[in-house]
């Protein structure tokens, strides 16, 4: 095997510096927080959230204006020596979704910290802001990274920022859950690193673009990819590797749960997508896609039933996350594409991307609403929540709207996503996947209705919050849930935005 000849695989574009800004802005914020101390943390965080949202919007505008991927070559050094950052349509969609969700979660967290003036500059709020910024930076780095080792670093930063989020309150059970998460994520990291080393040993480069052009083959290459994907699956908590997710996501404080469930587990999935789509040879990708789809389908069915039987609201939402992640993995065989139609031109590609974004919005909304409920009543046992809709109408509405999206009921982003995936399954002749999609929708209907039914109940003694809940605390969840519902207005067809910056993309229609 020979090292690859250095060809200019990446050409920097004028807007490329925005990608650096997206990655570095939260890092600068962390440094500023450490320098200026706890009293300034919240202010710095809020400023960064607003600026970061602006950067994300600027990136979207730049992509739409040029119609091509944004690229930045660090230091002007071409890969394989240097590093490249690149954002195509899908990456930009991820960046924008992340910015929106992080901003909403930050707004919620700020309102929640304000409820207890004595501890608002204490250890937990300060740590939360620092970790939130670190998570955000790592996510952006993963969405725009082009180098597999660079991505490994970002993935590690993500894991090490996400794990402490689980045990912010310092209770013994959450520390145990965080340790469980850390151990399994480390196992995943090891596998990923092993795969990266194998690749580097064989090809002398870890740049995704170069690897893709090399059309590499051979058993070592297959093993390397398999190790990397398996490691990422462990971090994505796909069934049956979900041992750490329910206790970790259910035990964390609401704002942290929302970050973990909506965003953090999307990063490993995004990398698996890049590996399967851009690195693996097409035929091998098809077989691996089948394996992933089987795991995804099992995840949908198994964990939806588990969600149905949970006694606690946050555990139910956590199991629902594992189930909904399954939908992302059944996209692989559905978006297989053909000789004339690349995967990113298929409706399943759009469906998968919409599922990713709408799940992020809906799940964040659900965890924030659950956080308000726990704040108001001091517990989240579903059976004891009878009549919470009267006490917290906005949170109940947010939960219900987010539930519509999870169930795939129109009008919502989840409906469009599931409708597109179902159409792809019918056209492509995948009856079992079609049945799984429908069954998953039914089971989701079951677990969402369990909660909605409690919200509508009128118990003899009305449920009263143990402390007043300000309106702005409830607002973040409602905004996210409404965004998930409004996503349902996108047309039922391949979405031009998601094809931008992909090689041989078809005639691109601006949305």
């Amino acid at each position: 095997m020979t090292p690859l000849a250095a060809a200019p695989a990446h050409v920097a574009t004028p807007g490329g510096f925005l990608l650096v800004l997206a990655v570095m802005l939260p890092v600068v914020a962390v440094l500023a927080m450490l320098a200026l101390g706890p009293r300034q943390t919240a202010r710095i965080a809020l400023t960064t959230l607003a600026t970061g949202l602006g950067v994300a919007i600027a990136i979207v505008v730049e992509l739409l204006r040029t119609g091509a991927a944004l690229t930045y070559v660090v230091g002007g050094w071409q890969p394989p020596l240097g590093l490249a950052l690149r954002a195509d349509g899908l990456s930009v969609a991820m960046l924008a979704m992340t910015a929106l969700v992080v901003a909403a979660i930050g707004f919620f967290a700020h309102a929640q910290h304000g409820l207890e003036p004595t501890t608002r500059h204490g250890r937990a709020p300060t740590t939360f802001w620092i970790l939130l910024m670190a998570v955000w930076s790592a996510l952006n780095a993963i969405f725009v990274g082009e180098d597999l080792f660079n991505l490994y670093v970002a993935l590690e930063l993500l894991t090490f920022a996400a794990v402490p989020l689980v045990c912010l309150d310092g209770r013994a059970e959450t520390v145990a859950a965080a340790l469980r998460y850390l151990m399994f994520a480390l196992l995943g990291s090891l596998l990923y690193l092993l795969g990266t080393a194998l690749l580097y040993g064989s090809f002398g480069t870890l740049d995704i673009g170069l690897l893709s052009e090399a059309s590499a083959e051979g058993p070592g290459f297959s093993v390397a990819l398999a190790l990397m994907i398996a490691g990422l699956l462990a971090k994505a908590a796909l069934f049956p590797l979900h041992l750490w997710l329910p206790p970790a996501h259910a035990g964390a404080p609401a704002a942290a749960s929302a970050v973990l469930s909506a965003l953090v587990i999307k990063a490993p999935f995004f990398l698996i997508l890049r590996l399967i789509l851009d690195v693996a040879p097409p035929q091998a990708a098809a077989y691996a896609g089948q394996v992933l789809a089987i795991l995804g389908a099992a995840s949908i069915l198994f964990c939806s039933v588990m969600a149905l039987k949970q006694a606690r609201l946050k555990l139910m939402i956590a199991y629902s996350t594992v189930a909904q992640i399954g939908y992302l993995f059944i996209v692989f065989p559905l978006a297989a594409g053909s000789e004339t139609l690349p995967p990113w031109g298929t409706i399943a590609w759009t469906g998968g991307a919409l599922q990713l974004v709408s799940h992020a919005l809906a799940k964040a909304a659900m965890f924030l609403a659950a956080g308000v409920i726990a704040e108001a009543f001091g517990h989240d046992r579903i059976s004891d929540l009878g009549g919470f809709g009267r006490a917290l109408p906005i949170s109940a509405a947010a939960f219900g709207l987010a539930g519509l999206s999870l169930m795939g009921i129109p009008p919502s982003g989840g409906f469009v996503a599931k409708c597109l995936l179902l159409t792809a399954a019918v056209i492509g002749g995948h009856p079992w996947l079609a049945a799984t999609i429908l069954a998953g929708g039914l089971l989701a209907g079951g677990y969402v209705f369990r909660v909605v039914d409690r919200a509508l109940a009128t118990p003899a003694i009305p449920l009263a919050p143990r402390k007043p809940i300000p309106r702005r605390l409830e607002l973040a969840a409602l905004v996210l849930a409404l965004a998930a519902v409004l996503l349902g207005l996108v047309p039922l067809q391949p979405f031009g935005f998601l094809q931008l910056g992909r090689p041989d993309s078809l005639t691109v229609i601006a949305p």
Partner: protein
Amino acid sequence: MTASGLLLAAAVLVPLAMAACCLSRGIRARAPFLLAAAPLPALLAAFLVPDGTFVFFPAPFRMSLVLDRPGAILLGGAALLWSAAGAFASPYMGRKPATVRFAVWWLLTLAGSLGVFIVGDVASFYLVYTLVSLAAYGLIVHEQTASAHRAGVVYVVLALLSEACLLLAFVMLAASHPDANPLIRDVVATLPASPMRDSIMALLILGFGLKMGLVPLHIWLPLAHPAAPMPASAVLSGVVVKAGVIGLIRFLPFETGVPVWGTVLIAVGIVTAYYGVAIGVTQTRAKTVLAYSTVSQMGLLAVLIGTGLENADTGATTLVAYYAVHHTLVKGALFLAVGILAATGGARLRPVLLLTAILALSLGGMPLTSGALAKLATKPMLGYGALGYAMTLAGVGSTLLMLHFLATVARDARQNPEASAPPGQVLPWLAVAAASLVIPWSLYPAIAGETVQSLFQAEALWKLLWPMALGGLAMIAVSRLPKLRGAIPEGDIVVLAEVGSPALGRLILGIQQADAALRRWPAAGLSLVTIAALLAGALMLGA
């Protein structure tokens, strides 16, 4: 955008806007008064908008509205009943905080249920159909009793199942179509030639049959309709089940016909028509008897739809709509009558009972009522063979069931002390009762193609009277069997389904144990290694 297009859009948007306005505190206090006014745009549209109107709203709404003959007939009848029931509801529900919530669910259900009659594209149809299905849950569980709760659970499970069947059917229908959201009439035109024709037809009949309450998918209906407050029962039984009827009218290919599936519908319809009567006569609560009567009547409608499908008869859709609007108004009036009878005593009881009896016997086909018109109008379509007789016998059954209903309400009414229903409830009831006579009479010449005079001939009267007489005899026979009363629980075979729940419980327990086992460290580690090996194998196989 023409004026008629705007009026059609207002039929759906005005109730939705009213529901949204309930977010404001000032309007919320007056919410119950909105209920009667909300369906008025739809009522106007049904009368003023010309047949064959087509409106398209461009992106981002991508909704098209169509008003054809069957749609207009059903829309008019439904809007009238919704309006009257809404007027009935505001004094009936009173000024309680829960009334506002009831009003919001009411408005949402109303918007969806009127929407299904006028939308023209597949995605919008699914949207409004889902709206009416899910919002009706709020009406069913409103009283929060244990039985309402059980009814709500059964209803939601079956409604979601219906949604799933229809989503798959719609996706299969639209799959071969270049447009992502095609018009219903375009996809239905390609249905008979589709390679997936039989699966699509099966899914459509399953999905819409669930909504109509065709046996054995009727179990939610006798549970849910009696559980809701009185005005909600009236619209659930009168209008909401018609979402299934309009679905079949819209999505079945009547132009080319599919004889096999026509026969299936006829068979299911006849079984349903008799089954509803047979279980209905064993019931002891008036509202449950009416719900079983709805099941039986939906069976008759399925027979009519099946006949049209078998004979490739496009005119059948108008006749189905005509029969359906008769049922909408009469059944709605009967549910309201149960509410009025419960609040009436003394001297006023007699005229109320008399009008109730006329309405009830109308379902059995009493001469000069809408039921007689509906039966005579559909007679030529069914022919005079075995099917015609089977339908006549079903009419005998309807008479029997309605006599049983009258006996039940008369028995319950005597227990009430001196009381009189408020005029706010009596007037809407009288309006629906009057409409149930006026609308079918005024439509009859155009629908049946006969003059009204032909109705008064001795032959026509005899055709209607002997089944009624037979029904009366059957009632005498049934009333001698006291053991029948209460012999079968409400929702009949749902009890069988509930027997199967231990097995389901065991399955779920198994899944929970498997989850606990898989989430142990050794198992998870093993899974990780196995998955890595599987992936490596898959990747090598393809390389």
